[in-house]
């Protein structure tokens, strides 16, 4: 593992704190169909070989793997903001208390998302992918401009990922609604981060720079990217090879 690669999470498969038996059963019911489907399909592999982990293959024909996809993206975001807020230069790079609060809020939201998906996948009997984050040398976690540019990339990518994943959840409307509850929060993050980069301009919502991710500014339509596109964009930040199938 290279110096910039870091273990994203420790015991990914541990049972979430506070998950009661009742919650477990409700989740198991929610995801029951997916579990049964996954259990009889040899293609459902989230391989993990300890800390380094093996390649991660997500089969989008299975709703449980769509949740794993979301978990992977949320885990990456949570790891990033956790490092930003914990960075020794945080208070000096972000001199504004309001900006520090904003980034701390975003960190806490991404952690909430990650832990929710961890609980949901675990309760459904699924396994979690072992992921190791790495940050390209161009990312400086102690520099305001670098942090905000990276944050914008992650938030816009998150919006594109959820919008593009909706088609894989049409058989599970309750999961579609659940994804909808999260994607709008990611879009709120994206808006705020983009406004920090270009205050009080049209940039908070002008998605002309996201055309490659399926956005159409003239029609007022946000980004919508395929899992293959999203995983390719996330790959520089995750050590394990990421592949989408069933798309």
């Amino acid at each position: 593992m290279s110096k910039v690669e870091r273990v994203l999470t420790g015991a990914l498969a541990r049972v979430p704190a506070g998950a009661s038996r009742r919650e477990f059963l409700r989740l198991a019911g929610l995801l029951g169909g997916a579990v049964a489907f996954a259990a009889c399909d040899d293609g459902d592999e989230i391989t993990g070989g300890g800390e380094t982990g093996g390649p991660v293959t997500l089969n989008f024909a299975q709703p449980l793997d769509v949740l794993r996809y979301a978990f992977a993206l949320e885990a990456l975001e949570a790891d990033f903001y956790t490092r930003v807020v914990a960075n020794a230069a945080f208070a000096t790079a972000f001199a504004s208390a309001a900006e520090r609060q904003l980034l701390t809020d975003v960190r806490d939201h991404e952690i909430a998302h990650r832990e929710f998906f961890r609980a949901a996948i675990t309760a459904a009997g699924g396994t979690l992918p072992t992921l190791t984050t790495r940050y390209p040398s161009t990312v400086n976690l102690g520099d305001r401009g670098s942090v905000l540019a990276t944050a914008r990339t992650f938030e816009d990518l998150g919006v594109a990922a959820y919008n593009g994943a909706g088609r894989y959840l049409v058989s599970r409307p309750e999961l579609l609604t659940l994804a909808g509850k999260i994607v709008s929060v990611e879009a709120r993050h994206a808006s705020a981060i983009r406004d920090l980069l270009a205050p009080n301009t049209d940039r908070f919502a002008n998605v002309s720079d996201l055309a490659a991710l399926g956005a159409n500014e003239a029609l007022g339509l946000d980004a919508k990217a395929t899992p293959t596109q999203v995983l390719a964009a996330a790959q520089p930040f995750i050590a394990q090879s990421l592949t989408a199938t069933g798309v």
Partner: protein
Amino acid sequence: MQSQSILEQIEPGTWKRLLGRRAMVRQGVVAGLAATSVPMFLAALARDAHAQAVPTVLQVLNFALTLEHLEAEFYNIAVGRTAIPAAYGTAATVLAGGGASLRPVMEEIAKHETAHVTVLQQTITQLGGTPVAKPTFDFTGGRGATGANGRFGGPFADVFTNAQTFLALAQAFEDTGVRAYKGGAAALVSNVPVLEAALQIHSIEARHAAMVRRLRAEKGWVSGRASTLPTAAQAVYGPGAAAAQFPAEDNTSQAGVNVATLAGASGQVGVAAASEAFDEPLDVATVLQIAGLFIRA
């Protein structure tokens, strides 16, 4: 490009596949929808919603179109693209009074909402439906009632002259729009291109909502259900008609998991972050109750 359908622009190649669905979709259109009288349409939609009927794709799209008409007219009056109706008895000076920073933000939102109206109208037409006509709006919140002076007399009389009033209503409309699209998404699963377009509009509305909130010195995300909005707009963050399915924005339980007690950065996630991290959907009937304040009865 001009003659090309919006759906073709959204997703080239899908229109032919959609045509096969057209007859099926038509069967789902309620007879009353063809009349396109706005209050009739809204009343019928609200009735269906109360009856727990699953709305058809066209009903959801016309519901969304109604909200987009509302937002588009609201912002277009503010930026001066639409002449302010005489019933307001004033010029629209709200952007002049709100500092130079307001204009680029509001121009961008106006542009998007106008585009959303067009996208929805064309999509509805292509699916064999009839786009609902633009209602008569009363952004003073008085349901279109005019006094002896011929002017709207609702509680937000200074909506187009006072930036704080304007922004408060903008926040209410945007956050309601986010909840409305979220509530409607599950009814669109039979038509993937339409579902995806709705999702793409949904997150654009969320970008708008965060910006407007931050202009009002609020957090960009919805924290709990308390707000700084006027009393008449408090329902924006409240529960829907069926609270189990459409909880208030202070909800911290997702799919049976208490998110607040999951592991956080230090200790637990907590109630505030658990609420902020998940936006809640809202049902058609409740959204129409909120929007109804601004639509001539």
